[in-house]
């Protein structure tokens, strides 16, 4: 039995529903985790909203979050696009990395405790295609075969589980509003459900169309023979129904903050107004293009200006304006924002003042309930860039998704694993309160530093020994190549707490630079290793 049916069957709606309107009331009331009924309710219809900001084209992560502790190597690898050290914006209590100089608004947001950064988010076997990698981020599946890979979006699966039976039974009195709204010309895979998108795409709620629902009393007796007609029937009906609802909410809503006149800010302004207008929509997506900076990402005379700087400024000020507006509207308690991009960019720059497609990159979360901090350490940038030109991932992007599901949408295991297709660790990016859970970033980073991960000898040859520690439970050690791709899984299994040695013999890998990535619970550690010529 799914959760919603269970609720319908066991709880008188009149009693439960008012409480469900505000999900925070459950944690505020101190529902004990052991109480299955209250934890069930807490995981039920909370009113938490996720706003996803897609940075289209592959964001140059190390120019957004500059690795100050690796500055010399960073500068050496990309001199013509490097941000001067003195211009890097400082974050409270953080000395290992800082922000692009165009991000002062976001710097303030962070220093006010309303933002967190995760270093080097990506996945194993990085795909360098915009289109494939975007699909990977949106579906949460890296399966290569186009016949067997997952085609639904990670949030599509979440919404389908939360609101089963969409689209037929919707809207209804319990769920009167769109489940997701994409401020976009076209839907994206993120909210794709098993039958069709769980969301609506709109560009401008002020547009008024003469469009009428053709099905008011039109007989739909024949079953559609193909899926395209079935789709067209559904979209015709839902478009009419939901666009009236969206427009009504928009007209009822308002903005109290000010937004800049750029694309992203205006999209977020619409989102804030719809939220204020009373929509119970759970997911909003917005996007900004132009991140595919192969060329001319900086002005040669001043690398703190140029195309990427404009994008960083747009992103930074838009997030800050949105957050401020939500605070003035008193809606900030139920909104979490998050950025993502299909990949980062190459460490080494091109002669054309740009950077090619890369691997892992930092990701931003913001909102009232995020844990201020920079999770993870700066990417390891070697002195000799010819050997390693990509940033290996420290955090699988699905760990970030697991975090959102667990700590924002209050989903419990094993459902998180089901939605994400397998198990991913949750990270301490969001305060425990909203879903009644513990943890902070500082503790996490300190714990990660204490983990043991060593390989000897250096460089290694035919044989080597890897030493690692674990706090117990599922633990993995992966070997990653210079492209950021996992070339070998050293171990991936349950361990009792302790320190272990594993021997490697004749691993057949070519000589060169590699990384070892240790992962256990919410902790990871990545070290650089070197394989010598045997």
């Amino acid at each position: 039995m799914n959760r919603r049916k269970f609720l319908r069957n066991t709880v008188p709606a009149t009693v439960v529903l008012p409480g469900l309107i505000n999900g925070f009331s459950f944690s505020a009331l101190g529902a004990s985790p052991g109480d299955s009924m209250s934890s069930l309710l807490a995981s039920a219809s909370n009113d938490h909203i996720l706003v996803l900001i897609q940075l289209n084209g592959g964001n140059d992560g190390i120019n957004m979050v500059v690795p100050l502790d690796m500055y010399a190597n960073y500068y050496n690898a990309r001199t013509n696009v490097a941000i001067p050290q003195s211009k890097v914006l400082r974050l409270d209590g953080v000395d290992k990395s800082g922000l692009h100089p165009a991000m002062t608004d976001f710097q303030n947001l962070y220093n006010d405790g309303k933002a967190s950064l995760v270093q080097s988010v990506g996945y194993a076997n990085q795909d360098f295609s915009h289109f494939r990698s975007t699909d990977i981020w949106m579906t949460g599946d890296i399966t290569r075969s186009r016949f067997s890979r997952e085609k639904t979006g990670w949030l599509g699966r979440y919404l389908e589980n939360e609101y089963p039976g969409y689209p037929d039974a919707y809207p209804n009195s319990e769920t009167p509003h769109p489940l997701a709204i994409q401020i976009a010309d076209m839907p994206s895979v993120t909210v794709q459900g098993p039958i069709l998108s769980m969301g609506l795409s709109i560009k401008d709620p002020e547009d008024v169309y003469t469009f009428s629902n053709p099905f008011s009393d039109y007989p739909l007796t024949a079953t559609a023979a193909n899926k395209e007609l079935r789709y067209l029937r559904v979209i015709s009906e839902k478009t009419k129904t939901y666009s009236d609802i969206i427009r009504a909410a928009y007209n009822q809503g308002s903005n109290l903050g000010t937004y800049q006149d750029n694309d992203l800010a205006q999209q977020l302004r619409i989102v804030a107004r719809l939220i204020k207008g009373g929509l119970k929509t759970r997911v909003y997506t917005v996007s900004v293009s132009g991140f595919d900076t192969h060329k001319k990402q900086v002005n040669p005379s001043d690398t703190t200006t140029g195309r990427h700087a404009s994008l960083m400024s747009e992103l930074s000020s838009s997030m800050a304006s949105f957050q401020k507006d939500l605070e003035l509207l008193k809606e900030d308690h139920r909104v979490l924002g998050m950025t993502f991009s299909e990949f980062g960019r190459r460490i080494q720059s091109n002669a054309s003042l740009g950077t090619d497609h890369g691997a892992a990159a930092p990701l931003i979360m913001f909102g009232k309930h995020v844990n201020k901090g920079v999770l993870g350490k700066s990417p390891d940038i070697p002195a000799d860039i010819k050997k390693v030109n990509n940033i290996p991932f420290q955090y699988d992007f699905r760990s970030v998704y697991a975090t959102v599901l667990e700590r924002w949408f209050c989903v419990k295991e094993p459902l998180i694993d089901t939605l994400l297709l397998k198990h991913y660790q949750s990270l301490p990016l969001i305060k425990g309160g909203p879903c009644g859970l513990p943890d902070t970033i500082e503790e996490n980073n300190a714990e990660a530093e204490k983990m043991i991960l060593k390989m000897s000898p250096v460089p290694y040859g035919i044989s080597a020994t890897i030493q690692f520690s674990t706090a117990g439970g599922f633990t993995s050690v992966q070997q990653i190549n210079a492209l950021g791709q996992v070339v070998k899984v050293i171990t991936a299994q349950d361990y009792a707490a302790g320190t272990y040695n594993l021997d490697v013999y004749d691993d057949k890998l070519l000589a060169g630079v590699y990384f070892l990535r240790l992962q256990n619970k919410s902790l990871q550690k990545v070290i650089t290793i070197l394989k010598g010529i045997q």
Partner: protein
Amino acid sequence: MNRREFLTSSRTKTAAKARSSRNLATGLTPYAGAWTINEVAHLLKRTMFGARKSDIDFFLGLSVGNAVDELLKTSALPAPPVRDYGLITLEEGTFDDLGVAIGQTWINDLNVSSDEIARGNIDALRIQSLRKWWVGLMLNQKRSIEEKLLLFWHHHFSVQREEVESSRMLYYHHDLLRRNLMGNVRELTKLVTVDPAMLKHLNGHLNAAKAPDENYARELQELMTIGKGDDSGYTEDDVMEAARVLTGWRIDTDTFMAYFDVDAHDKDSKRFSAFYNNTTISGSTDGMQEITQLVDMIFSAREASRFFCRKLYKWFVYSNIDENTEANVISPLADILRANNFEIKPVLEALFKSEHFFDVQNQACNIKSPYDMIVGLMRDFNVSIPDYTAYATGYPIFFSVYIDAAEMQQNLLQPPDVSGWPAYHQDPMHYELWVNSNSLPKRADFTDKLITDNIIDVRSFAAATSMPWNPDRLIEDIDALLFRYPLSATSRAYVKNRFLLNNTGDNNIWTNAWNTNNNALINPALRELFKFLLNLPEFHLS
């Protein structure tokens, strides 16, 4: 058996399967089935934009084979786009395009005669005239596949106006595609590789030996030749090596022509992976020779011909290629492409003459693109269109079509990105992307407006049917001409009663009105009827 019986009976049989997934066993065996208005409309609406009744009648008189041969004929090159704009008013004053007179083509003019302040605006106006001209050619298409095939090439070798920023480079790119639209995909790929618009679009013109820019090298393999299918095996090193082959090409900023700068070229050998048979391309000072070797090497991989045939298939037939279709259609088409040394005409011929193309499950399953919808509708209704050369009377109409299509997410010379239009590659939505909650109201507004403004003449359309005074026959004929997916009998009865009989159930109401030429009854009834029909989901299927 008429079309409707044929469609419904065979669909009833397969309905259960079709609901879960398509199950097509047909392959490239030549089609030998019925040749009625249904099959002709299917062929025409897939290979052209819409179908005039006169076109349908023309092709009904041919055999299937002759009809396809006729459609695959190409015509002489059109006259180039011309200046259609007058003076340019800016804050600094009023300026003229001193390079060309109104009505003259600008394609040979380097835009250096006019005041420098106005040159950017002049170039933008020239690009707009290029778009208008192109739309004019679509609206005025001949009985040929060429305009739809040309739009396919634009999708395949996607370039964007915002990146290219030059009317000349965009025009000559377009011209290159138009000249080669029925030609050889491998040779065209070589030409596009050094085409100035493509060099600009994917930074080939900045690609230097010192620090190669991989942009084109990657998209060449991923989006134009090999793809990311299960059998694709090119490596990241192949991308980097190809980028090195492609170093050194530059664009002359005065003439907008491409040239090869040997000093910026990487003259060391380039080594490719086992996927390309460990090919080595020796470094040289001849950039074009290396590109020839590179493209030949890529096309010698079997996956290249399959990838291209899949792309054609998604454009002309269906979005999803299952394992049966891969084995029975794609693989043999790829063999034909290779056997014919990468000439595409034999491939198109085999595809459009095949029983697979006419398979009932391949009919009415394509969701119209904006150009299919707009240009198709205007041609379905035989709207009188000025010649494509008529810059004074035609270009304004062509421009409004361009704007409408762009609003509905198909922007000529500005596809969303280098992969073209996502409806032809984005799993799992594919064609469904064209019609969503954002675009559907725009489509409805557009069709309503065409009727309200009398741009499409619904009265003439009705009058041209077989028995317009008979409301049942009228609805049936309209259904057959307008919809690729037939309305159900109940739906036909509903629209007849609601719009033609004023909800009385009495056929005489319409027959009397028609026979007495009662315009006050007929015209509003037809307008509301067609507005309703063009709002139905079935209308968006092709």
